[in-house]
């Protein structure tokens, strides 16, 4: 069979009434989970695992995947409307999305997020169809030194994120790196910097960290003032004006999709890292980088496209190599194993219905999500009319239930409240949380790849420069760093606003 026949075959699998139903259930649950702050896809997917014992393997996997990418659509809603991320992967959307909402452009922001997600989803499905297996082969060339150099490049990109003082951003990044190291040492399995809490052995979870730094701290800041917060103009802009704005974000969407697709393939990163990198890259490309953070549509379009592209491209290592690259993929892997489907090089031969059915169902699912989400925008925007004194307790409660359900542990609630306090202080003292979170995501990979490399090379640093892939990442990182320092000196930013 040629590729065209496979596509038709995949479509025929995906459009069977049964599978259409599971696809809809998946994306619907995904959207809901995405909207609820703090509640992520992992919990819902593992809850549904036993349900899939009784349905067909294709249906099961279509539904589980639908939850994951459906989540990326819903996650931006609370980010934009109330400045509280619905998912860890929509943290960065708060920066410009909320500012847009303040200017009365909530509808446009929500629209570009949905349309961006749809375009990114479509593009990465094509990537998945044609490139999955070659890319997976190439990814295997990445050993510890390559990952170390790649993460170094990521850390340089991180410096693009900041709006204010570079010095303070670097300090936050270092704290993020440190938080990422808390927990059992990856080499000796001895607890490190756990402050006597057994619950910290597996490290600080990203959800309590993000929900605390962004969600709880936002509520705390708002409480300083009287709770009669101004209600933003909520009318939806005319279709023509909206269209014009959306079209202006087309390159941001495409760049975001590409960045997201690439980052999504890497282990550990997934949608969270993708959204950060896409935002930083977009800012670098922009002719008006200083306007980022003031409600620029590109600042919403790029990360929202990236997280959806990444959600779909992270399926590549799973399907083609049998390697789950993040927690959500691990649950999906479990779901496949239950049905005796071993993802990996034989998947195409042994279960073409699963691979092509899944890929095509994602296309169908993305269309469903577009149709589901566009009409909902009007309703979401109306949520802003709920008085804040009712809104904030409910949002808080969702955060609490969400972090609790991660590990079914009360400790996570304490952790979220603690980071809420830290985030509050950070805002008070003029520190940004975005560099901290991105560094935190990169930190474990940075350390373990460094130690693995040196262990392989017997202590010689030449291992980072003797391999072509690693060397080129190092060179790009150095180039970007010099460029960044040069432009900072030119603008006098290092000195003027660092204090």
């Amino acid at each position, binding site marked *: 069979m040629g590729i065209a026949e496979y596509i038709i075959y995949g479509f025929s699998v995906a459009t069977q009434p049964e599978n259409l139903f599971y696809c809809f259930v998946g994306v619907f649950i995904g959207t809901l989970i995405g909207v609820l702050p703090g509640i992520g896809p992992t919990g819902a*997917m593992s809850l549904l695992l036993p349900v899939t014992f009784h349905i067909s393997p294709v249906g099961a996997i279509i539904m589980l995947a639908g939850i994951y990418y459906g989540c990326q659509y819903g996650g931006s809603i609370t980010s934009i409307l109330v400045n509280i991320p619905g998912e860890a992967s929509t943290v960065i959307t708060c920066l410009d999305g909320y500012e847009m909402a303040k200017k009365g452009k909530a509808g446009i922001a929500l629209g570009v997020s949905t349309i961006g997600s749809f375009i990114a989803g479509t593009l990465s499905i094509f990537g998945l169809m044609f490139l999955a297996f070659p890319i997976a082969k190439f990814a295997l060339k990445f050993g510890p030194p390559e990952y170390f150099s790649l993460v170094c490049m990521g850390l340089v990109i991180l410096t693009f994120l900041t709006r204010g003082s570079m010095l303070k951003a670097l300090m936050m990044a270092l704290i993020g790196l440190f938080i990422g190291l808390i927990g059992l040492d*990856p080499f000796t*399995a001895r*607890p490190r910097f756990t402050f006597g809490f057994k619950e910290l052995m597996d490290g600080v979870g990203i959800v309590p960290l993000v929900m605390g730094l962004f969600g709880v701290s936002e509520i705390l800041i708002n409480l300083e003032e009287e709770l009669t917060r101004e209600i933003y103009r909520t009318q939806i802009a005319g279709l023509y004006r909206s269209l014009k704005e959306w079209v202006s974000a087309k390159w941001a969407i495409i760049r975001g999709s590409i960045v997201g697709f690439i980052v999504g393939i890497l282990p550990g990163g997934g949608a969270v890292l993708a959204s950060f990198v896409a935002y930083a890259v977009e800012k670098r490309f922009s002719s008006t980088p200083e306007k980022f953070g003031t409600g620029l549509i590109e600042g919403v379009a790029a990360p929202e496209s990236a997280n959806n592209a990444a959600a779909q491209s992270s399926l590549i290592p799973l399907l083609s190599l*049998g*390697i789950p690259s993040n927690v959500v993929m691990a649950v999906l892997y*479990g779901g496949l194993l239950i049905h005796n489907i071993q993802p*990996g090089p034989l998947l195409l031969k042994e279960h073409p219905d699963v691979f092509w059915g899944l890929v095509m169902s994602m296309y169908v699912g993305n269309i469903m999500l577009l149709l589901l989400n566009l009409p909902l925008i009007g309703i979401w925007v109306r949520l802003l009319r709920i008085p804040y004194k009712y809104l904030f307790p409910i949002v808080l409660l969702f955060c609490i239930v969400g972090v609790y359900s991660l*590990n079914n542990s009360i400790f996570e609630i304490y952790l979220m409240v603690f980071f809420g306090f830290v985030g509050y202080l950070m805002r008070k003292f003029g520190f940004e949380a975005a560099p901290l979170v991105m560094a935190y995501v990169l930190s474990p990979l940075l350390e373990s790849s460094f130690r693995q490399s040196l262990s392989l090379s017997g202590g010689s640093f030449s291992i980072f420069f003797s391999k072509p892939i690693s060397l080129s990442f190092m060179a790009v990182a150095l180039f970007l760093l010099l460029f960044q320092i040069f432009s900072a000196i030119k603008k006098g930013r290092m000195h003027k606003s660092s204090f």
Partner: protein
Amino acid sequence: MKKLILSIFLFLLLSSFAEAQSHFPSRPINLWVGLPAGGSADVLARALAEASEKILGQKIVVVNKPGGGGTVATSLLKGEKPDGYTLLLTTDTAITRAPHMMDLEYDPFKDVDHFMIIGKWKTVWTVRADSPFKKWSDLVEWAKKNPGQLTFGHCTASSFYFGMVKISQIEGFTFKGVPYACDAPTMTAVLGGHVMVGGGTAAPYRSHVLANNIRIILSDEHIDYVKDRQYTFKDFGYNFEVPLLAIILAPKGIPESVKKTLEKGFLEGMKSETFKRIAAEQEISIVAMTGEKVTDYLRKVSGIYEKLIKDANMHKTQKKQ
């Protein structure tokens, strides 16, 4: 303010409606899993719950409480009521290995009941298809000639690592261990040729072995999916155990009658087709050990690992290098 306090009190009273308990089980049973959702142990637990709840006549709710390889859940279990409604499925790491490596809040042999052992993961040593090590003996020979040069990818402080330590002691070679974040990353390292040999559980490798990307050169027992001639511990006279076990723990002091009911329910459930199929797919040999034997066996395994952990200089009392 009086009204406020009164209403609070009323509400609290209302929400504590009593529920008579006559026989076990009269309400859903919580089966904790000490490891993250979607992993091999989690899937096994869900299969067991699904199969056993029909026999016990009550729902079994699987609750993931991951952290520290199951040690977090074990510490929490210590504080639970021993009424049979809270059980923990985890690997033997929390009982036989972790206590030697770190200070924990529980005594593995005093603070919890070792309820049963339900399975054992099959362990494999793998190389990439183009590796010069055609057989296990090739690897041993090369490692002896090149001391400390053999790179071995493994999950941090796992049974696979200590198994390799044991083998190297018997054969008289030294190697360089490179820890990865368990099965999937280790497999990536083997596939990408970043390490010469990898160790892990058998299930994830199935697809790559059948596609001739990876070869299994040693395993602790027979692997069903391998078509070629395979070499197990027996072939090399390795008559020692370094098992990775799936065990069920309970809070100390469950009533005997409750224990019997649960035992019967789980043992029946383990005979079901669903459970057998899922265990087979995960390359887990079903063990079904109950009663006193469980504690005795775990004690023995713990002794084996304690010695190996000391030899690897990873014991909690040892000075770090």
